């Protein structure tokens, strides 16, 4: 009998906003701490800003839970500071981010159905 099946990612939901933003930032590739912060700030037009304490407190817990891991590779060794540590998503981290995104999408669908959100504009991005 299998004894070490992967954990059900739904047991970790809901995620804190900071953790979900960090997982989203790493979804398209590995990044260092400041890269993660910049990605979050740019993606949210500066509405969400994660401070160094929140960032590394979350990184510590996600490393411990195996959702992310350190990467030895450097995207560009010439241009990059070798002291920086890069982080990337693991398979379980990716699954946790996926189920959280599905949970939030379900909430948005419900909000649409209850008339709390306007329908997407014709020809718009949605």
């Amino acid at each position: 009998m299998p004894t070490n099946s992967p954990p059900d990612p739904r047991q970790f939901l809901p995620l804190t906003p900071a953790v979900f933003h960090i997982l989203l930032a790493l979804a398209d590739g590995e990044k260092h701490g400041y890269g993660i912060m910049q990605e979050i700030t740019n993606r949210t037009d500066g509405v969400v800003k994660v401070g160094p304490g929140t960032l590394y407190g979350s990184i510590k817990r996600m490393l411990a839970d195996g959702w992310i891991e350190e990467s030895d590779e450097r995207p560009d060794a010439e241009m990059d500071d070798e002291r920086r540590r890069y982080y990337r998503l693991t398979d379980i981290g990716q699954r946790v981010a996926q189920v959280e995104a599905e949970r939030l999408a379900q909430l948005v669908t419900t909000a649409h159905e209850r008339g709390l959100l306007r329908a997407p504009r014709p020809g718009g991005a949605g």
Partner: protein
Amino acid sequence: MSTQRLRHALSFSDRMYRLLLAGYPAAFRQRYGVEMAQVFRDCCRAAYRANGPLGLTLLWFPTLWDWALTAARERVSESLSRSNSMSDTTALDRQLGDVVWLMSASLRSGYSVLQTFETLAQESPEPTAGVFRAVVEEVKQGRSLVEILTDLQERIPSEPLRAVIGVMLKQRETGGNLAFMLEPMSASIREKMGSDAALYPALRKMAAHVGAALPEHVTKSD
């Protein structure tokens, strides 16, 4: 001229932030301190380039907020994991059965969840006091209780406390009487984890305060 001012401003902010890092537990600081200082330096440089000295000054407000919140959180987290590694049944777990009983009694007497947490933070021995002190502190700093409890549930190394928080979060989501939901948990946690006599003086005081009769095992210890 401008480069020199930038260097001076960055160097001052860098020194100040490194001092603040002392507020984090040593293990956390050793592992992440260099990276945090480097990230903060990057933020300072970007803020200065965008808005000059004012930008750099304004960066300090969210940074201090972030520091106050996360340094306290990491200290509590570290003290909890240290106490957890000392024995299978932690001090927190041994206190939890009675803490849950008190929460239930307090809520039944009409006290709010936050008032109950404040009383526990003030009157309980450690480590219970530390956990509730951190929660109350974060509520006062404007975080929602659901967010704080979710966060606590993620990082706390105590299974029984995770279960208690799970019930509290469930009640927030679906409604229902939290006092009655917690009541049966108290005896079952105490049965599994035992009880901590260090909590009894505080328990007597708080029970008198909320007008509740003490559980039998506490009265027997008199």
